[in-house]
């Protein structure tokens, strides 16, 4: 009894000093409208409190809340921007990474969720090739590599960067059609939601776009593994992607259902379902989780 009391006192004194720089203390996020919780409560607009990464809503049980349960002093500062791409524009992965590097207090956990707009913001392909206007896998990989190199160069030693695979937008299209084929197609047409897929009536051509997304995710994993090797001992890089063979084994293979998406634009994860599942999958694919639990998250 006396020994355990002594050990308890000793732990209380020593533990704060033993806390490693690698222990999670601040979470940042690079992402798009999904990270911003766009439409997650069925109202148009950003709802970051409902985002899978930075959310504070108990139903979503975001990555931030899960880290905070481990460390009450955990903070967050996301730089995600609705409409952002991995590759293009001013808010791409490297642009957002540069904003993280400019922070006075650097995070030591970063989650990256991008890719949907890289497909959805492209023009429709040619008659012979639905993917003609999509970025090449090389382009996608080099854009991600630039961001990972920036983060590796500025994050504290012991930091961890998680790169989530990108969702299959053709699965979101299927989910919308299952939800309400008339209203979803109407809003997609008026608002111009991912027309490269939602305006494509040929299932084979939509599948070709989905296959390109699988290739992006294969490239994403290759870049993550290369960065992990390049920066071993300083910053770790992880991803949930384990290939396209098994459905629901990662965010990129998850077949969104009608209840997973919002009812305004039929294309964004809803808070109680899609966002909550993403949060669970991201958590299980990271340091405190178990990768084999990801499919259970996505049920």
């Amino acid at each position, binding site marked *: 009894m006396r020994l355990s009391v002594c050990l308890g006192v000793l732990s209380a004194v020593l533990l704060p000093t033993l806390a490693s720089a690698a222990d999670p203390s601040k979470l940042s996020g690079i992402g798009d409208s999904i990270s911003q919780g766009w439409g997650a409560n069925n109202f148009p607009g950003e709802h970051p409190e409902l985002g899978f990464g930075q959310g504070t809503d108990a139903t979503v049980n975001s990555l931030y809340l899960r880290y905070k349960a481990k460390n009450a002093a955990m903070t967050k500062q996301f730089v995600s921007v*609705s*409409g952002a791409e991995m590759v293009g524009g001013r808010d791409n992965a490297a642009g957002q990474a540069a904003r993280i590097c400019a922070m006075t207090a650097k995070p030591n956990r970063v989650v990256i969720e991008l890719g949907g707009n890289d497909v959805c913001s492209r023009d429709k392909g040619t008659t012979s090739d639905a993917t003609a206007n999509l970025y090449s896998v090389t382009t996608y990989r080099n854009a991600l590599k630039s961001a990972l190199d920036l983060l590796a160069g500025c994050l504290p030693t012991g930091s961890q960067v998680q790169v989530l695979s990108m969702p299959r937008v053709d699965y979101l299209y299927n989910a919308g059609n299952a939800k309400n084929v008339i209203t979803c197609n109407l809003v997609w047409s008026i*608002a111009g939601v991912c027309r490269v897929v939602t305006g494509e009536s040929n299932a084979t051509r939509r599948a070709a776009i989905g296959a390109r997304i699988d290739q992006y995710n294969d490239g994403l994993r290759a870049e993550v593994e290369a960065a992990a090797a390049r920066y071993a001992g300083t910053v770790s890089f992880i991803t949930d992607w384990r290939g396209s063979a098994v459905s629901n084994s990662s965010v990129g293979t998850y077949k969104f259902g009608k209840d997973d998406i919002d009812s305004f634009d039929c294309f964004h994860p809803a808070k109680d379902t899609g966002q909550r599942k993403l949060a669970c999958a991201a958590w299980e694919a990271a340091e405190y989780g178990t990768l084999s639990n990801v499919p259970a998250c996505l049920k």
Partner: protein
Amino acid sequence: MKTQLLSFVVLALPWLASCNGADLASGATVSEREVSALAVAEPGAKATEYSARSATLRLFGTQGEGAAAFATLADTATWDTSNVRVGETMGRSLKLSAVRESAIEIVDTTTNSRRTVRAGEDLTVRVIEHEFDRAARETGEHVFHISASSLTRVASRYGIGTTCESVELATYTPCKLTAVAKNSLAARVGLQAGDLLISADGVTVTPDNLGAILRGLGESRSQSVQLTLARGGVFFPRVYLVE
């Protein structure tokens, strides 16, 4: 052999010059001789309306075939990334002359020098821009910095460049841009065909007031204008900060 040597010297000159400390990318002023050799000159513009800056461009990659092929280039200072097709320019003097698998060729029309860049590689260049090219600069997170006086001149020369029609979207009645003319004021402030304009500083955008709202960006009556728009289904506020 002589021809080969001459070709090497001509092609290597820019690189040799940069190795010699004469940084090709430096020099903010633009000469009349350079203006006369620009790939895309602004009609009637004097040399003083142009400026040059150094930029390091990274080729992320190439895609597509034939006339549809395009290159994706990032400016590593800002990570602003653009898709460029053969024949199109970066600034006024750099023309994309060829797109190959994972490589491109760029011509600087003021020096007639050609440079080849491979995917993942960086290239330092001198970019010449006209005042109109900098009339509205996107700095990320849906923020644009605009020069009111430059935008007024853009509008005077190229017009507003767009119209819109009201559409119904749930409880909203946004104004959908039908087309956006190249070089116009609408194009300069980053608007695209299909954008749904919802409001400007709280005022609903309609086909009747669109022109006045966009022209107002060049009249700098306030320090900032917030335009709420939807693109690709996502609504977001865009802020124009007037300089």
